[in-house]
């Protein structure tokens, strides 16, 4: 066991990969019976301080359909200077530069420890990073002021040679020209009219210069800055200008009458931003950063009318098919997202408002382009300010933790095919021999585009074992997968990261134990959750839950040890033991439950769930609960109502929220002011401990979680109460009033009930 855990952890650290199965069933039939598909979570740009990029280009397999990168798994004939591709078995000559290789003089990519390697490409033009701010001006004065300050601050964080642009919108959309002296100049667009990219470029006067540019590609780098100079300028040049411009930015001047929402042209603003970049910097790393303080209320992409008496759509409306703008708006943003993705740009949405802002409709923009989605109550909160600041955080090398315009290519050995991927990516529609017909997530391709990604961006990639049952794989055979990620580094270099992994095949009939032992239940839970959430986007909630339940039951049937029809006999091995619990919490999570969440919130949660790495994803599925008491050091406790005790301080991390909860007694003590008395300094320390820990989490996480400091009986305690397993409720009275925990007022089933049912169903021969 330990070995497998170590193996998994080691693999994750080295390659950023977590497979659901670390030993692969060798036939298609067997694989399907495993219930949890063969899949992996891949963090393409996992931070590897110990991995300096090599300064040359990768050696590729010469077979045009393969083009796999030379890797440690390849057979190498040092004498003949030949290498055999481990995917297609093509024998290839080493390029001239490799003439000196030998067993003792190996290039890095042949060394086993370099299963992941990063190449730095020197050729090709470097284009600066581009940041295009798209700013809503229909904000309250405070909010706008705070936003302006944040934006001004961000200018100092940008790399000096980065290009910035500014679009503001309200009733109209203004594209600001940044190079003007003495007069500030902007192009204004009506907020109600959808324009094609061509129209936008015409109207911005970009067409003439853009045309020759495309024809004369080599000249691109020289021309580009020139072409776009009016709207996108190097930070160092227009720093002052832009600061002033932002400073003078006014609230949208158009009067908003009583009972109306301000007219907000988000759809057109975004469309113009996309069109602008499309016309000037296609296939160059760029971020469109949309800051909005409310829902789009006019034009294409409007989410709600401007009448305040008509509330913005709720899940209830959507279920009743009562959200009249939703479909059209969604279509608009999807179209934009796809265009943006095609150009290699990404869209961030920073939505700060108390009400919904239309994230449901706009979610595809960040989802498909790898942009960020941040939701807050106001721009004037530290949540937004710090989150925004964190976008520009730097890594150990002093580089921004962001990369652009990546393409991820997956190659598999013959026994495998690619079923799809789930994550912040779009399909590039590259068909090939290793693409499966069965799709899981975004499938039908072996390549995806990830326009914006950071070191934690994680994709779930699903495979299908295609080896037939009657063609057994020789003993000791291994399946291999190669991930090739080409991207634009934040230093503007082009880089290629190649990860090649291999796993053993095992015959599921004879070696089920091996396979079972190599099950990574955490990865599996997350991968299954991604599948579920992916389905939830397009299917009815209950259907998804049913599907999840069935999968879980089937898994238990397959891998549980039990006597038929005897629930009490049911046992799961260690490698599966946590899995049902994950599923239990997943079913209750906001990713699948929409109750109590607005459509925007659901979209927000799902967005993050689909891109965070395994650890964070698990926290999202099953929040972590720490308990602080005088009884000992802080300890993790069960996410259970029984953990809520009067003399404890609880710290819950749900990823989106950090909740500090003071038990009843503690709260009373604090109220009495003991912490201020020197003799109760230990109490003060106790109070302080969770705060410090929370701070630590806050420091590291993106987006910044909502920080909730509450106590027994506090209204905000609901955040905690809604998450814990309701083991004690008003229904099971035996716990009522006892010191053993806090009852939760809910009709939800508890984990215990859930497990009982599961066992019953698993052992039932009927299902």
């Amino acid at each position: 066991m330990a070995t497998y855990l170590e193996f998994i952890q080691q693999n994750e650290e080295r390659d950023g990969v977590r497979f659901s199965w670390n030993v692969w069933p060798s036939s298609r039939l067997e694989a399907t019976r495993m219930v949890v598909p063969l899949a992996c979570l891949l963090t393409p740009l996992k931070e590897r301080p110990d991995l300096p990029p090599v300064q040359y280009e990768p050696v590729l397999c010469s077979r045009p359909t393969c083009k796999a990168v030379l890797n440690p798994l390849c057979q190498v004939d040092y004498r003949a200077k030949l290498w055999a591709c481990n995917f297609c078995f093509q024998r290839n000559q080493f390029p001239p530069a490799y003439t000196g290789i030998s067993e003792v003089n190996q290039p890095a990519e042949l060394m086993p420890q370099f299963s992941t390697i990063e190449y730095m490409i020197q050729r090709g033009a470097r284009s600066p990073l581009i940041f295009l701010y798209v700013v809503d001006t229909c904000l309250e004065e405070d909010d706008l002021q705070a936003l302006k300050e944040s934006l001004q601050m961000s200018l100092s964080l940008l790399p000096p040679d980065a290009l910035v642009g500014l679009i503001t919108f309200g009733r109209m959309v203004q594209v600001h020209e940044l190079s003007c002296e003495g007069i500030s100049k902007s192009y204004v667009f009506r907020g109600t009219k959808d324009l094609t990219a061509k129209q936008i470029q015409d109207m911005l006067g970009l067409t003439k210069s853009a045309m020759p540019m495309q024809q004369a590609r080599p000249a691109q780098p020289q021309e580009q800055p020139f072409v776009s100079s009016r709207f996108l300028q190097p930070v160092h040049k227009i720093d002052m200008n832009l600061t002033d411009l932002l400073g003078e930015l006014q609230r949208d001047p158009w009067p908003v009458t009583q009972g109306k929402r301000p007219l907000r042209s988000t759809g057109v603003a975004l469309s113009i931003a996309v069109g602008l970049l499309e016309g000037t910097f296609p296939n160059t790393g760029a971020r469109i950063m949309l800051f909005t303080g409310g829902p789009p209320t006019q034009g294409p992409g409007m989410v709600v009318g401007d009448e305040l008496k008509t509330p913005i759509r709720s899940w209830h409306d959507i279920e009743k098919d009562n959200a009249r703008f939703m479909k059209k708006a969604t279509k608009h943003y999807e179209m934009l997202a796809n265009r943006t993705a095609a150009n290699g740009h990404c869209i961030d949405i920073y939505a700060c408002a108390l009400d919904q802002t239309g994230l449901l409709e706009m979610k595809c923009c960040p989802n498909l382009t790898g942009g960020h989605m941040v939701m807050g109550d106001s721009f004037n909160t530290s949540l937004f300010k710090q989150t925004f600041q964190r976008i520009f955080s730097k890594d150990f090398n002093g580089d921004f933790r962001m990369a652009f315009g990546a393409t991820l290519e997956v190659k598999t050995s013959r026994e495998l095919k690619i079923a799809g991927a789930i994550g912040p990516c779009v399909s590039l529609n590259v068909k090939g021999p290793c693409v499966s017909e069965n799709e899981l997530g975004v499938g039908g391709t072996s390549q995806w585009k990830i326009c914006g990604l950071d070191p934690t961006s994680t994709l779930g990639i699903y495979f299908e074992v295609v080896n037939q049952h009657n063609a057994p794989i020789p003993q000791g055979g291994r399946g291999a997968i190669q991930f090739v990620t080409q991207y634009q580094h934040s230093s503007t270099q082009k880089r290629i990261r190649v990860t090649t992994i291999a796993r053993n095949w095992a015959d599921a009939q004879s070696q089920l134990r091996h396979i079972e032992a190599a099950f990574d239940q955490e990865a599996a839970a997350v991968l299954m959750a991604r599948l579920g959430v992916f389905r939830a986007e397009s299917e009815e909630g209950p259907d998804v839950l049913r599907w999840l339940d069935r999968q879980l039951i089937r898994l238990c049937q397959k891998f549980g040890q039990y006597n038929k029809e005897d629930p009490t006999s049911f046992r799961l091995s260690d490698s599966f033991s946590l899995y049902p619990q994950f599923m239990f919490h997943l079913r209750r999570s906001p990713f699948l439950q929409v109750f109590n969440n607005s459509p925007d919130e659901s979209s927000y949660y799902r967005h993050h769930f689909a891109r965070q790495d395994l650890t964070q994803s698990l926290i999202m599925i099953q929040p972590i609960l720490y308990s602080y008491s005088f009884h000992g050091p802080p300890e993790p406790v069960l996410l259970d109502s029984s953990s809520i005790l009067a003399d404890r301080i609880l710290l819950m991390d749900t990823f989106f929220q950090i909740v500090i909860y003071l038990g009843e007694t503690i709260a009373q003590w604090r109220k009495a002011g003991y912490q201020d008395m020197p003799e109760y300094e230990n109490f003060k320390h106790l109070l302080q401990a969770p705060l410090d820990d929370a701070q630590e989490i806050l420091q590291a996480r993106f987006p910044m979680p909502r920080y909730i400091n509450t106590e027994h009986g506090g209204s905000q305690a609901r955040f905690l109460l809604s998450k814990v397993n309701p083991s004690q409720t008003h229904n099971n009275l035996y716990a009522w009033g006892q010191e053993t925990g806090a009852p939760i007022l809910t009709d939800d089933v508890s984990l215990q009930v859930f497990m009982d049912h599961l066992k019953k169903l698993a052992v039932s021969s009927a299902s």
Partner: protein
Amino acid sequence: MSVNQSAPPVPPFGQNQPVYPGYHPASYGGQPGPAVPASPYGAYNGPVPGYQQTPPQGVPRAPPSSGAPPASMQAPCGQTTYGQFGQGDIQNGPSSTAQMQRLQGSQQFGPPLAPVVSQPAVLQPYGPPPTSTQVTAQLAGMQISGAVSHAPPSSVLGYGPPTSLASASGSFPNSGPYGSYPQSQAPPLSQAQGHPGVQPPLRSAPPLASSFTSPASGGPRMPSMTGPLPPGQGFGSLPVSQPNHVSSTPSHALPPGTQMTGPPGTQMTGPPVPPPSMHSPQQAGYQLQQNGSFGPARGPQPNYESPYPGAPTFGSQPGPPQPLPPKRLDPDAIPSPIQVIEDDRNNRGSEPFVTGVRGQVPPLVTTNFLVKDQGNASPRYIRCTSYNIPCTSDMAKQAQVPLAAVIKPLARLPPEEASPYVVDHGEAGPLRCNRCKAYMCPLMTFIEGGRRFQCSFCSCVNDVPPQYFQHLDHTGKRVDAYDRPELSLGSYEFLATVDYCKNNKFPSPPAFIFMIDVSYNAIRTGLVRLLCEELKSLLDYLPREGGAEESAIRVGFVTYNKVLHFYNVKSSLAQPQMMVVSDVADMFVPLLDGFLVNVRESRAVITSLLDKIPEMFADTRETETVFAPVIQAGMEALKAAECAGKLFLFHTSLPIAEAPGKLKNRDDRKLINTDKEKTLFQPQTGTYQTLAKDCVAQGCCVDLFLFPNQYVDVATLSVVPQLTGGSVYKYACFQVENDQERFLSDLRRDVQKVVGFDAVMRVRTSTGIRAVDFFGAFYMSNTTDVELAGLDEDKTVAVEFKHDDRLSEESGALLQCALLYTSCAGQRRLRIHNLALNCCTQLADLYRNCETDTLINYMAKFAYRGVVNSPVKTVRDTLITQCAQILACYRKNCASPSSAGQLILPECMKLLPVYLNCVLKSDVLQPGAEVTTDDRAYVRQLVSSMDVAETNVFFYPRLLPLTKSPIDSTSEPPAVRASEERLSSGDIYLLENGLNLFVWVGASVQQGVVQSLFNVSSFSQITSGLSVLPVLDNPLSRKVRGLIDSLRAQRMRYMKLIVVKQEDKLEMLFKHFLVEDKSLSGGASYVDFLCHMHKEIRQLLS
């Protein structure tokens, strides 16, 4: 007043008319006729044929030979007289004298002369008899002399102002007799002089004919002549005669006629007798005068020839149309606008015009007079074609005189006259008739002790509201009548209540938006820099209400080429913000706050903006522009700001950029004179009409300044200004150096002038007539309300009335023009103008109370509107026909019976032919080769809102000799008739028509004069086409420049000066404005046209 009253004499005048028969020329012509059949007619120019007076004269004619004799007869006489004349003043020669001279000349020359000189060719042939050499000489002189010959009499008079003479003569003869009235005496002389012109022919004939009966008169004349002559020479005196003129008016018809050739024939035969009978005494007097004049005339002749290089041309003119030669009429013998104007000035300029009495004909527009409002609107606000309206539509139809009023509701008054009082009736609002909604005015009758009032428009009896009640005095007048402007004045204003406001909301102050083309052309010519610089200071002079300290008007700025740039100039900004709108297909206003600002508050930002604009676009390479979206943007901006206002557009080129209202170049000269010509005047697309409609609804007036290098399709671009009550200014090939002053001056005036916004005008009339048609710059969505997005002090609306019932002489015809508008301070007001006209059952009364200038104004507008729908030729023919009908009706119904060969014109309309001819020859109706399609469209829309004074000078330019009157005289020099004949190569002349200003320099002007005016030593060194006179410190230069300045000040638009040298290329341009001459584009000369008109009339009569 008195004059009008004098009207009664008219009948007698009518009789006078016979004088016309004076058309001796015809007879003369007739003589030549023998040689050429046409010749008889020839006497009457083109019209000759028409001039069948000959028939009557037929005698002379028929027997060509006989005719000839008469000629000879005359000739001799003429000779004698002429001889004298010839010796006479040179001066005479030039002006009307010319005609005189002609006679003389002709006479001198011998027989040929006699035959109306005008037909030199013919004459010459005849001439031969006398002396070939002379003939030739004559030829040259002929024309002149020809004219002279007739003119002689008139010439004398006209001397200074030949025209006046002519007219005078025309009128005088009759007037003399009739008018002679008391006034006549003093005047008589003058009249005589005037007549002389007219009579001359008669006389001349007579004199010549001495043998004839006429001689008798001649005899007397002679004596009188002498007397008069002196005065004649002192031209001034002659003009003075005009007073008579007025009086004479009734008779006028005669004079012209008389002048015409008629006399010879008639006189020769019986005719002389008849007229004599009537006029005899007077005539005699006249003749005498004439004779006298003749004497002096002679002198002139010589001069004429020399100075009149034109003469040759003259000859040439007649020459080309071979048949014409015989036609020649004596130009001095025909009614002269100059004389009429001078007479009116002298007679009516001195006393204020008091409007108390119904149906008074006001003085001419060319006369300076004061108005005292005593219950009728000042003629500055309303002028009518006739102040005496036929009672029935039958009469009106018979007379064919259009019944129209030309209304200038916001006309600017001279400082001596008080602007309309503002009446505030509080919340109740203005008092109105319940039925027809007419506003309370002096014409309403209070009855039942003041408790009720009867509407004089619809006769409805209304209750007087208690708060308005007042007792009546013994005359039935309200006791407070003189305390209330609305009960005692013709023009006044009411404060409107909220009911009169759009959306029942008091309006906000209007706004001005300056929209500047910044395409390559505009930048290159320096226009943008110039304009921005000017605006900086001009913004301090926005119109303001009464004594307000600062203007309430807000301003906004837009620049554009293919896209539009709006500017945020909010006072709180450190620098202006520019907002570009490229979505021209779907224009909108990108900002609200900060676009329209108070000038004072945002001064710094505006200045900074105006500094920036030329810089920002200095390197532009954009040549394409849009147009409709610009207007739309301005309109939307006003809409967003919920106010009315005015857009000032500065535009350079045909809008070919892809956008609504995009135009293509469709200029095609080949269409001229085809049925498709009208398309050139029609807008290319309906976009602009729709746009204009929206503008009107918003109260958005558009003033357009065009700076084209080539065709810009003024016809289409001016649609919006035209329909929104705006103005169009055009500066072709604009160059800062040359056109700066003109443009800036126009701009300043346009920006500063008083303007009302979002106006609706309604003309109410008393039962019996109805306003049926409207002309001007406005939009109408129904048949009664004239909607004007903007209306400034220069804009006029012409209204035509038709009968829908009988009128009664007793109650007359009443007009009330109510204009609801928003003042420049944002105050909603109603301006009311009332005017009462007389009604008549006798056509003669109608003809006696007509105003030719107004008539021409109306007819020109009518014709100019017509060209959009009908071929130009049709329009011209319609005009001619109508004119002929008017005159024929007069002849038939009002004039005393006389020979058909006589052309008889009503006194009030004796200038109708000459003016109408000017209209017919104008660029719109008969374009010359150098006139562009744009020019025509431009003029067309310009004329549509011109007032009477403007059309008057526009169609008949003023030609002022600069070097004739003593340098130290401060008054304006007397004008001369617009004919090349009147130019002397030894002089310098100034010509203006309200749009153009020329200084014509004769080839033989004294060096000293050249030096003191142009600062060069000789004629040849004067730069042709010069547009500025050097500023020199000498009396002549100061005087001329002063004169130019004062002329410019009088006109609505700055007139660009062009110095033209005699015999220079540019002279062609100048000659275009000598409207009495035949024009290069085929327009008839005055004389020819008169003959033609005569022919038409005769046809109608027969």
